[in-house]
């Protein structure tokens, strides 16, 4: 089971990962967007990190909801409302929880994906973060029986594949859609940041 401390550790690690990948994500966004995705994610998660001390001891639902609200009011751009909604919806769905099993992670991913659809109206193949969340939800659903770490290893592997699979797509949503065919050949920045978040969760559990 994943504890409330591990959730906090995940968010802390996410902040580190976003800082480390600020340039990587920004470069992806420079190719087909406006060169700010890494900057946005880093700004948001460093605000989340600032909030973590006061979240210690709170239930996981509250932690995720607060994270969502923090992202909503600090990231801006397209990814702010999207990730904000992901975490707020997940927080609502996991309200009161103090530990998470693989089933709960399924719930987390599902409500996150649904939040993305509700806000962004993305469908498969639009070349957005949805193209990572959708297959992850499917694989997660099919592997509810696994232990959290093994379960997460599967999810991350799926996410990485899905992230890379956004490269050949032509964007139909967000800023990259303006580029038409010129968006082909580049990984979607939001798909990349979503994969980083999942990998950070996996690494948190792996680490202890």
């Amino acid at each position: 089971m994943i504890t409330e401390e591990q959730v906090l550790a995940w968010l802390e690690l996410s902040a580190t990962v976003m800082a480390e990948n600020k340039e990587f994500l920004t470069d992806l966004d420079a190719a087909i967007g406006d060169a700010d995705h890494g900057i946005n994610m880093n700004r948001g998660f460093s605000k989340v990190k600032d909030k973590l001390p006061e979240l210690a001891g709170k239930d996981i639902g509250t932690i995720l909801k607060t994270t969502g609200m923090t992202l909503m009011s600090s990231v801006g751009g397209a990814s702010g409302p999207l990730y904000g909604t992901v975490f707020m919806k997940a927080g609502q769905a996991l309200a009161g929880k103090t530990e998470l099993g693989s089933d709960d992670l399924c719930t987390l991913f599902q409500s996150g994906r649904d939040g993305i659809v509700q806000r962004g109206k993305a469908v498969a193949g639009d070349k957005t973060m949805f193209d990572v969340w959708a297959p992850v939800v499917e694989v997660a659903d099919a592997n509810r029986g696994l232990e959290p770490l093994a379960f997460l290893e599967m999810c991350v592997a799926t996410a990485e594949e899905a992230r890379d699979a956004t490269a050949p797509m032509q964007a139909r949503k967000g800023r990259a859609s303006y580029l038409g065919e010129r968006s082909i050949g580049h990984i979607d920045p939001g798909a990349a940041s979503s994969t980083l978040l999942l990998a950070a969760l996996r690494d948190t559990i792996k680490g202890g």
Partner: protein
Amino acid sequence: MKKIINDVDRVIVETLEGMAAAHPELKVNIDPHYIVRAHKGNKVAVISGGGSGHEPLHGGFVGTGMLDGACPGEMFTSPTPDQMYECAKVAESGKGVLFLVKNYTGDVMNFETAVELVAGENIAVQAILVDDDVAVKDSLYTAGRRGVGLTVLMEKIVGAAAEAGCDLDTCASLARKVNLNGRSLGMALTSCTVPAAGKPTFQLADDEMEIGIGIHGEPGIKRMPFKRADEITEILTTTILDDKGYSRTLREWDRGAGDWVEKTLVDKDFNEGDEMIVLVNSMGGTPLSELYVVYRKLAEICKGRKIKIVRSLVGPYITSLEMQGFSITLLKADAEILQYWDAPVRTPGLQLG
């Protein structure tokens, strides 16, 4: 990267602090970022916002006859709903709030959340999108046309209407009309450099230019060999004039139902005999002299097409930091639009009349 800044993370705060020092007629709030008039009017509050880096848009357009409030986001990044909500609460005076929103995924999503928050306080609120960039051809396979140069004209005209005492629905209708009657197209000679990124967003060779750029340093729709001013102006102007029947489905807020409704709206065609308000806009790094070289050819083309330019604005109004390039906006004007265009405006970034 050489820029007149102190710290890439403090550019926007320090810009706001400088504006506050230079303009006592504005009230600049730092946390969260928003700008309102120091003396608020008893009128519909017209509020806009968007990523920073387009100065004077939007903050420079707060003042008598134009905006009541502006919400600057991070560089080229939509502001967040909490800013918009706070700004609206401070600026509104019981006559309602009208958000003017440039059509970008991020701006739309953040402003929609703000509308819901403001409506939750029982304040009458509406959000009208501006999506005038003819570089984007369809709205089916893209996020739809971007809001670019027409935003300046919309803020001026709708701001004047609100100043004259028009109610929320009248202001919203006028904004919608301006949007359906205006079109823009831009081009770049160079990219700009986002401070936090530290290097130019894209690279253009010495003999290349980019047509159909947005205002966020993003690449455009077509890279071409660099051409003479007249040829570039001809490409932009004829593309704008010949653009027909763009249709899109946008969401507007239904105050009665307290929910979003979809509206399908179609642009009005430009025809012989039309009277136009024209904006020739610098992307930041292009000197005024070159804008006039463009204006010269634009006026010639319009004359040849029997289109009458009745008002014009030439200068840097909606920029992309230090990017070199320009955009052209044409707005078909009727009596109502002209009346509000000619009304006086006193803001740091635009004074007319």
